[in-house]
């Protein structure tokens, strides 16, 4: 319990730093630390899958995205300071936020005991799915439609990001140009880290059926490895009009949807799996979904096209 109190104090302290820091760069660094501390909190709440997702996606990729944005917008810290809200606004906002917090705290303290839970029903039917990680069973079997729609949402966000390209670089290469220094430090690190990282990413995805892990965590590690290789200048982003890139992006959701439709024929409902082949079907869905999500996440971090494609 003392450990929990210390952890909560740290989390609230870092969150207050993120809100109150003067410079945006310092706030973003605070946010990355906040994400990692939240991952510790998730472990304390007996949710290791969520802890991995928070550390990789919520803290790692989001932090990288925000760091890049904060350095690009660094010159705007000054002029925006003249719009600071007045003291009355500050007081009103503080009162409102205290009311919101108090309302949520009351909800927490008045939670039902014993709490209603779906854990017994999830575990009762888990043998039929062929998986032993209950969170993966929920993601891929019980609530597979949520996961399907989630992959579509990721694609829609990517379409939104791509649509922000300027007219003359429409359909071009995303992200700035990184020059590769063959004797540079980043090249050395990328050459060592990327193969290990790809192995770790595939392992995290593969082991998700029996232990904490899964396709989102594995896909995030794979996306991060591409980002490191691209920052070292070892690989360059392809133009967004490339057919193989677009096929890689839609392969996951398309196959997911196709297997869902096939569920009508072989098991009597959308995204229903026949009991004997459940694990095989789930694996057939997970592999292309992992590749698609890794590509989507990497392209979301790379941003809209900024360089015209070479003719």
């Amino acid at each position, binding site marked *: 319990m003392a450990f929990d109190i210390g952890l909560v104090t740290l989390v609230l302290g870092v969150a207050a730093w993120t*809100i109150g820091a003067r410079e945006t760069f310092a706030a*973003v660094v605070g946010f990355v630390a906040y994400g990692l501390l939240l991952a510790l909190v998730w472990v304390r709440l007996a949710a290791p899958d969520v802890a991995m997702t928070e550390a990789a996606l919520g803290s790692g*990729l989001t932090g990288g*995205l925000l760091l890049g944005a904060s350095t690009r917008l660094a010159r705007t810290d000054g002029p*925006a300071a003249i719009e600071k809200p007045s003291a009355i606004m500050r007081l009103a906002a503080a009162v409102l936020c205290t009311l919101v*917090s108090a309302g949520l705290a009351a909800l927490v303290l008045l939670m039902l005991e014993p709490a209603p839970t779906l854990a017994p029903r999830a575990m009762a039917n888990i043998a039929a799915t062929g998986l032993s990680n209950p969170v993966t*069973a929920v993601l891929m079997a019980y609530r597979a439609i949520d996961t399907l729609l989630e992959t579509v949402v990721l694609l829609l966000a990517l379409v939104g990001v791509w649509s922000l390209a300027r007219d003359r670089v429409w359909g071009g290469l995303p992200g700035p140009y990184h020059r590769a220094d063959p004797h540079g430090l980043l090249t050395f690190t990328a050459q060592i880290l990327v193969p290990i990282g790809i192995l770790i990413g595939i392992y995290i995805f593969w082991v998700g059926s029996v232990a904490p892990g899964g396709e989102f965590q594995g896909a995030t590690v794979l996306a991060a490895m591409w980002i490191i290789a691209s920052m070292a200048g070892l690989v360059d982003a392809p133009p967004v009009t490339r057919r193989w890139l677009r096929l890689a992006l839609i392969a996951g959701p398309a196959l997911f949807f196709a297997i869902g439709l096939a569920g009508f024929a072989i098991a009597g409902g959308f995204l229903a799996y026949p009991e004997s082949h459940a694990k095989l079907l789930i694996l057939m869905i997970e592999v292309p979904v992992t590749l698609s999500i890794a590509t989507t996440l990497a392209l979301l971090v790379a941003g809209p096209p900024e360089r015209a494609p070479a003719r």
Partner: protein
Amino acid sequence: MTEGTLYGLCSAVLVGLGLFGLIMHPEPLRKILAFNLVGGGVFLLFGVVARKGAAAGLGGDPVPQALVITGLVVAFAATALAVALLARLFQETGRATLQADE
């Protein structure tokens, strides 16, 4: 007070802090940061509900945990789109602010 309740109160304070930052900061990037803070707090509340639903030999109810994983991925996608919009706004107007031009 069980650990679940402690983390639940922590999540309530986080939502309040993030909301304060969202209202107070004029710079859009700080607003995006504060919004992510609010998101972290809300997901933490889900996690507390999951922890309280520990049963059948598990440490927590897996359904809210799976919902949080989905939520984290979607929150990242929203943040990426917001940052891209902000970068484009900066490219077009040379300033990153939500004030309308005079």
